[in-house]
């Protein structure tokens, strides 16, 4: 063990060279300081790092580190003050100083620019040298740094950077001048940026370096992010000039008076600033300067731009300038998430255009108004040709055009919305609201829309593919979405649908079904319930017809020639009966059917009631049609046969003539008494039989266009038609068209009655569930329940509540606040 210890004696560390030749601080410092000066003059390659390091090490070992620190600082300070500063100050030409004072940058700009570039280059070089030199000094003094750095002494590098800040940047450019190098630097850079903004090319890397210098310098020795000179000194100045610039720029662009240009340039400015921040300044400035830009250039001006006369958004909308709109949208979006300025104008424009459409749909019918009115009063003119040219139908056409116009407007805005407004949700909502707004301004909207569907389901979808039909119906449904009074639409739709179904005018049942399922999705089950049951009735009736035919075949007496019967049994609550019943609303005596038909009728009644006892059948002759085989004897003895397809009434009238000897006629009154057809229907039917030129089966005396009670009618043996089958339409009866004023009033009345019922039902439903409710709560609930169908009038609801109280469904529970209770 002892031997071991002897062998492994710990060698005392040699105190080495340092102790051997006991150099004192001053002599070592002399060596060191000359080395540091060499470093400053970029002559480091002649010095050995190890040597300098060792010298510093020695001094620190002497416990003189703080002295060394101070000495080095002093050395660097002297160096900066004497050499570097002179260099920089010399590079500041007088033009830079002068420009400092004068605000107008444009004059002598090239001279100033040159001088500025020179100055910036010198400053940049000086900074880079200083940075490099200090890096080296720090390296060689690393040992000292490790010993000295503390709260009071920042690392030597930081200390030297601070020296640069204080003795270069913050030194006056001339003795006694208030301007510092920093001021000149700042104004020069700002001047350069100004040049770039006005379209000149400047040396970006140079400025980038100077900015980097400012970013590398801090106000305090602790080097917090927020105390960068860039942030404390340059950025505020930059933002200030930016603000001024964009204020002026906004004014200038606005004066140009072209919204598209404004937006294009503004967008360009935004990208410019983004780029500038990215490549020249600091990324941290980007949001700040953009905010300045947004504020000054956009927010302050956007409204004016949007509303610019002749070039603003209005014009862009009218001319589908998608790019322009997109720019406006994006700019507006920057400053206002809700895009109020733009939205407002778009909305007004939509409503304006919508009103135009509304107006033109009203205007048009007024042109043929005189004749149309005559028509309405039953004081009728003969029809020329087919339905299309009927003046009444012009109104229908205009209704359909109204829908088409709205759809195309909608398409236009959808397109704009998608391509220019980047499918913005808020925009979509407000565009929709505007559409709803003007659509609901047209009180006939429901009727028009229903007519549109009617027209398309009757004719429009012929020869179209399924997907085209789909699109068409979808379009219509979109409009339906906007219509407030959906119950009104339902009424019209039912009315039009019943005509289509009974008269077999519908082109495709598939399309009808599709339409209903679409409505169901859009408005809800309740809405389509009745419409669906109409379809059900039709199917049941088909079966019924077949069954009846079988029944007749089984039981029918062979000697009697059976008349084919195709019957539709309709549930009266589901179908819009009022259109089938008499218009005057009074109970009318059923028309007298001829014998053949009457037996048929009775036979069917027996058959039906046998199956479904307890039901009541009422015959709606006005909706039916009949096929007749008529024989015409020409004067030359030839016999010509035609198959006539006429309305039930016309059939009844024609059958009368079976019993009339040739050459004799019947007067209007005779016909009337023998058929008991209402005046209204009779006139129309006689008109189509005797007046319409192509289907003149009867002759009338005198040959006037109007039907008078005294007129006589004869069977027209000269009737001639190129076709064997002749369809005789009833004048202005069958086609679905716009209602006249009286009809509208009736419809509205009906509507109101129905609404009253619906409102009462809703109130009772709510109260049954809640037992007691305050007035206002009941109101809100009722409104929300009904809103899917229509927007009820508050007074209407109040009246319903009153009436329910009167009838003791509800009672007043308390007065303050008004509360109702449900009476079970």
């Amino acid at each position, binding site marked *: 063990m002892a031997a071991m210890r002897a062998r*492994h*004696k*710990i*060698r*005392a*560390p*040699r105190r*080495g*060279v340092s102790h051997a030749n006991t150099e004192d601080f001053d002599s070592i410092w002399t060596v060191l300081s000359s080395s540091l000066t060499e470093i400053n003059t*970029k002559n*480091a*390659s*002649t*010095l*050995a*790092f*190890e*040597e300098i*390091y*060792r010298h510093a*090490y020695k001094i620190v070992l002497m416990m003189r580190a703080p002295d060394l620190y101070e000495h080095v600082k002093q050395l660097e300070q002297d160096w900066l003050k004497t050499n570097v500063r002179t260099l920089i100050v010399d590079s500041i030409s007088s033009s830079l100083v002068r420009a400092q004072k004068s605000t107008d940058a444009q004059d002598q700009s090239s001279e100033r620019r040159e001088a500025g570039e020179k100055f910036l280059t010198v400053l940049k070089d000086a900074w880079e040298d200083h940075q*490099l030199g200090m*890096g*080296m000094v720090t*390296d*060689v003094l*690393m*040992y000292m740094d*490790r010993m000295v750095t503390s709260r009071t002494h920042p690392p030597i590098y930081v200390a030297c950077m601070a020296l640069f800040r204080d003795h270069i940047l913050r030194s006056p450019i001339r003795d006694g001048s208030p301007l510092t190098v920093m001021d000149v630097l700042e104004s020069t850079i700002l001047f350069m940026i100004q040049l770039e903004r006005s379209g000149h090319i400047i040396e970006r890397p140079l400025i980038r370096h100077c900015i980097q210098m400012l970013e590398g310098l801090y106000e305090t020795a602790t080097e917090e992010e927020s105390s960068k000179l860039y942030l404390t000194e340059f950025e505020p100045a930059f933002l200030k000039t930016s603000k001024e610039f964009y204020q002026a720029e906004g004014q200038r662009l606005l004066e140009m008076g072209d919204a598209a240009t404004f937006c294009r340039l503004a967008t360009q400015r935004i990208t410019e600033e983004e780029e500038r921040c990215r490549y020249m300044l600091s990324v941290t400035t980007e949001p700040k300067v953009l905010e300045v830009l947004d504020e000054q250039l956009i927010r302050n001006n956007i409204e004016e731009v949007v509303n610019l006369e002749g070039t603003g958004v209005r014009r862009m909308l009218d001319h589908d300038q998608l790019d322009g709109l997109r720019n406006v949208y994006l700019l507006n979006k920057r400053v206002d998430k809700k895009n109020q300025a733009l939205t407002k104008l778009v909305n007004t424009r939509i409503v304006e255009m919508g009103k135009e459409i509304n107006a033109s749909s009203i205007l048009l019918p007024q042109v043929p108004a005189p004749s149309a009115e005559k028509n309405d009063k039953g004081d009728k003119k003969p029809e020329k040709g087919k339905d299309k040219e009927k003046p009444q139908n012009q109104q229908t056409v205009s209704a359909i055009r109204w829908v088409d116009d709205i759809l195309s407007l909608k398409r236009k805005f959808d397109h704009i919305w998608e391509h220019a407004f980047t499918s913005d949700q808020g925009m979509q909502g407000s565009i929709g609201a505007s559409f709803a707004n003007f659509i609901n301004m047209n009180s006939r909207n429901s009727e028009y829309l229903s007519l549109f569907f009617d027209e398309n389901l009757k004719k429009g979808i012929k020869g179209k593919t399924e997907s085209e039909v789909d699109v068409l119906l979808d379009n219509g449904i979109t409009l339906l979405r906007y219509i407030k009074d959906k119950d009104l639409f339902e009424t019209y739709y039912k009315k039009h649908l019943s005509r289509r179904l009974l008269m077999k005018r519908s082109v495709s049942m598939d399309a009808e079904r599709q339409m209903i399922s679409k409505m169901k999705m859009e408005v809800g089950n309740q809405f389509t319930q009745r419409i669906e049951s109409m379809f059900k009735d039709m199917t049941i009736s088909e079966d019924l017809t077949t069954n009846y035919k079988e029944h007749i075949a089984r039981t029918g007496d062979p000697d009697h020639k059976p008349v084919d019967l195709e019957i539709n049994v309709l549930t009266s609550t589901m179908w819009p009966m009022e259109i089938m019943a008499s218009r005057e609303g009074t109970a009318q005596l059923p028309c007298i059917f001829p014998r053949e038909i009457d037996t048929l009728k009775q036979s069917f009644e027996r058959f039906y009631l046998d199956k479904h006892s307890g039901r009541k059948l009422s015959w709606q002759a006005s909706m039916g049609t009949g096929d007749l085989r008529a024989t015409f004897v020409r004067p030359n003895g030839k016999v010509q046969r035609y198959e006539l397809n006429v309305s039930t009434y016309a059939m009844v009238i024609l059958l009368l003539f079976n019993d009339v000897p040739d050459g004799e006629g019947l007067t209007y009154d005779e016909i009337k008494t023998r058929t008991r057809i209402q005046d209204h229907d009779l006139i129309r039917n006689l008109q189509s039989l005797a007046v319409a030129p192509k289907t003149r089966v009867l002759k009338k005396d005198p040959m006037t266009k109007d039907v008078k009670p005294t007129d006589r009618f004869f069977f027209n043996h000269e009737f001639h038609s190129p076709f064997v089958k002749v369809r005789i339409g009833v004048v202005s009866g069958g086609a679905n068209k716009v209602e006249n004023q009286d009809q509208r009033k009736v419809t509205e009345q009906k509507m109101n009655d129905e609404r009253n019922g619906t409102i009462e039902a809703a109130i009772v439903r709510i109260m049954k569930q809640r037992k007691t409710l305050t007035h206002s709560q009941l109101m809100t609930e009722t409104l929300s329940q009904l809103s899917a169908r229509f927007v009820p009038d508050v007074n209407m609801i109040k009246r319903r509540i009153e009436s329910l109280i009167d009838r003791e469904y509800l009672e007043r529970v308390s007065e303050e606040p008004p509360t109702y209770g449900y009476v079970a």
Partner: protein
Amino acid sequence: MAPSTDSEFVTIVSNDGFEFIIPRSAACVSGTIRRMLDPSSKFPEGLTGRCVLEEFSGIVVEKICEYFCYNEKHKDQVNVPDMDIPPELCLELLMAADFLDT
């Protein structure tokens, strides 16, 4: 001598003339040597890749270089074998560690 700023190896020289050629990466375990060799600061050491350590003898520099390699080999590992350090050298090595910022 070939310029060796980009060479993979550097030479460490002791005060009594012993030269040790070790990988640059290993030498840079020492903060001091790393800065010494930094080519951007234009010191001759950086340019030539040759560092003369006037403070230490061959024996110590050998141990220092051994440590550099040892350090690099076992960097970021746990459960590494201890390095053999002769007790008589430990004080001098401590000084060297301080000097070289290792």
